[in-house]
């Protein structure tokens, strides 16, 4: 943004010397900032214009693009300036959905003891984020017949839904589905007992 000032002055000078026509307006300028995540890490983006590509891959890296020109040289914009530039959009950005995996005892719709502890986090998240939508998806390991596992995975999902409703969650915000043994978390062959696949996945949006 700061670099624009001398350029604007140059344009002004040139225009005054050659013509009395109104000044052509400076081209619109897009500004693109790469943001860090909550852990301070970033991925990367590639900005293309006028057939030129520039990669941004460090926190706060910023570049400007004038209409019809290649992307400008990247620089790091201080956090305060980023706030000044796009603060309201950042404030409006929803939190990404939170995911929880609850595990079950063998051939059962009873949660493991560890997973009963995870419920506390789940309830807290639901409370903190309200209003939310919640998807509850039941799964089994690959041991046993398909039909039996379809029923078991649905029973697991329903068991978790019942716990949530028992804690005051409105059942209309729950989307309950089940996958039987079709969608293991840990890939195994058929007829394999695998505790990590006996689960319900809960996504809070």
């Amino acid at each position, binding site marked *: 943004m700061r670099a624009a000032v001398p350029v604007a002055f140059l344009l002004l000078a040139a225009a005054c010397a050659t013509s009395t026509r109104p000044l052509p307006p400076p081209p619109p300028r897009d*500004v693109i900032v790469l943001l860090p995540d909550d852990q301070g890490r970033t991925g990367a983006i590639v900005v293309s214009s006028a057939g030129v590509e520039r990669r941004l891959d460090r926190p706060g890296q910023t570049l400007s693009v004038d209409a019809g020109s290649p992307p400008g040289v990247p620089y790091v914009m201080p956090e305060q300036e980023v706030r000044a530039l796009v603060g309201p959009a950042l404030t409006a*950005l929803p939190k*990404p959905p939170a995911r929880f995996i609850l595990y079950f005892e063998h051939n059962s719709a009873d949660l493991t003891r560890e997973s009963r502890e995870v419920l506390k986090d789940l309830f807290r998240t639901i409370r903190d984020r309200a209003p939310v939508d919640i998807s509850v998806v039941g799964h089994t390991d690959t041991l046993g017949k398909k039909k039996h596992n379809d029923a078991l995975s649905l029973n697991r999902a329903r068991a978790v839904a019942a716990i949530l409703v028992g804690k005051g969650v409105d059942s209309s915000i729950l989307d309950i589905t089940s*996958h039987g043994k079709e969608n293991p978390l840990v890939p195994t062959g058929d007829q394999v007992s695998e505790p990590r696949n006996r689960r319900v996945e809960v996504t809070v949006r």
Partner: protein
Amino acid sequence: MRRTLTAALLMTALSMLECVGTAAAGETIGVVRTVAGAATVLRGEKTLEASPGLKLLVGDTLLTGRDGSIGIILRDDSSLSIGPESRLVVRSFLFSPTEGKFDLLARISRGTMAYISGLIGMLAPENARFETPSATIGIRGTRFAVKVGEPSVP
């Protein structure tokens, strides 16, 4: 250990993609989560009041006034928001992990936006693109923000 963890997370992500179809005409592609000030969604000829819970379709335009902002979550669990005096259209969105089909194209023609990539950014980042009036932005699994330049008024 780290590799195992990443793989596990990815698998979790994949296995959670239940019943998410392609966003053919009329399918929900996301939902409005946060709204402030003057904020509307243009759908064809209709102007809808943006409010939390409003389901979004491909082709919807998000539009804000002076004090407005809108935040949405898309079906791939990415988050997107626009600030005041902004206009953004989701031109295409396709999220069908079972078929391996992913597509996200949004165009911001005015104002400011911020974005946190979701599963498309993880599974098929090259299929996620944002257009500004002057540039195209490709995603490599990340979050970023944009301010669109305003044409000068003579």
